[in-house]
């Protein structure tokens, strides 16, 4: 009905209505997100650990598969590091050993950045963290939500010769890592089927 024999004017009308609805949605969402935040700031005092969502709103967000891109404390650029001849596995040393690829600690970064590019503002931030004895609070970019009940292991994928870019996009073009590839179940299944790997549920879900 909606898209049936419409003239230009009615299209505009629809656009306006939807725009208003969208704006209203934004306002509501931000309002709720602010509430969400106030609830979450109370969370460190929470004396329990539970897989429950902190708020109903966060549950709704997850239901609709809404995940914001993370904001990193330091604008680490993959592009520059890779352009300088580094390889993924040089920093992500766990990738061919076990489940977790690892993000190196400050110690590791500082092996180079004690001398390299020390005048850059982002490196100064890093040095400041290091000098305070703090690790950089990197934000998770990929990773499955707990409710997916998925266990992913990097090592077998590396051993099978899956290229890093297959799941993480072309990192030579990314500065701060963004979620370039949507790790949906369909994405996993497709590759598993192509490569004739088990698509049995308990291969990943346990």
């Amino acid at each position, binding site marked *: 009905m909606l898209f049936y024999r419409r003239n230009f004017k009615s299209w505009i009308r629809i656009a306006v209505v939807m725009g208003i609805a969208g704006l209203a949605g934004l306002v509501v969402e931000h309002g709720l997100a602010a509430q969400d935040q106030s609830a979450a700031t109370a969370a460190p005092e*929470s*004396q*329990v*650990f*539970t*897989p*429950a969502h902190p708020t109903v709103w966060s549950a709704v967000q997850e239901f609709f598969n809404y995940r914001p891109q993370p904001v990193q404390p330091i604008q680490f650029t993959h592009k520059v590091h890779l352009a300088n001849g580094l390889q993924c596995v040089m920093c992500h040393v766990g990738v061919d050993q076990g489940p977790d690829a690892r993000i190196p600690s400050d110690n590791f970064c500082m092996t180079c950045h004690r001398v390299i590019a020390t005048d850059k503002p982002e490196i100064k931030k890093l040095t400041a963290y290091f000098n305070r004895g703090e690790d950089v609070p990197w934000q998770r970019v990929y990773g499955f939500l*707990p*409710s*997916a*009940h*998925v*266990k992913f*292991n990097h*090592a*077998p994928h590396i*051993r099978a010769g899956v290229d890093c870019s297959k799941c993480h996009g072309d990192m030579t073009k990314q500065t701060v890592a963004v979620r370039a590839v949507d790790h949906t179940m369909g994405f996993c299944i497709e590759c598993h089927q192509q490569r004739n790997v*088990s698509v*049995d*549920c*308990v*291969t990943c*879900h*346990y």
Partner: protein
Amino acid sequence: MVIDLDRCTGCEACVVACHAENNIATVGEDQAARARAMHWIRVERYYEGEFPNVKTKFMPVPCQQCGAAPCEPVCPTFASYHTIEGLNGQVYNRCIGTRYCANACPYNTRFFNFYNPVWDKPLDLQLNPDVSVRSEGIMEKCTFCVQRIKAGEVQAAAEKRLVKDGEIQPACVQSCPTQAMVFGDLSDPESEASRLARSNRATRLLDELGTFPKVTYLQRGSWHDNENA
């Protein structure tokens, strides 16, 4: 899996090992009083006779991983299904909580998360990162420690070999102080589990239901059998 009832003492080391390995929540006193305590493996205790001629029997009951499992066909979403390796898989993510599988299970080895589980901090640090933490509304049960099976297979694949018999042990088998439990590949006739499953003491729980359980119980022997032999 083979469980030798002649060795089992009912000490419940397996129960605690399972809790530790599989992130099973303790539900607390109130929920336990409402029959919602979760023990993927339990030791059933039966008394026979009256004082002073009382016999006690212990029988550990994990999920029997039936070959023809009643829990599998009834699940509308394939959350409970038969894996390629012959386990009764339980895909937590796919579970919508009809609890039909738990009703169909003759062994009552399925457990439901009536609430979101809770760990008083920092008890959450004990959680095994290899096993997912189930949330409210999800059915869960013994998986034969599928995370250990998978880890063993990945390890074997990395070393380009087959999994050796006895290499993979679920937590209960590993912990059993009397070595009453043996875990192995029943499709391999040479495995220790297969060998024991052919014992003349071998029985299966509620065998007449035709569920083809993959847990074999070796019945208690008698001292007098020994005498006559």
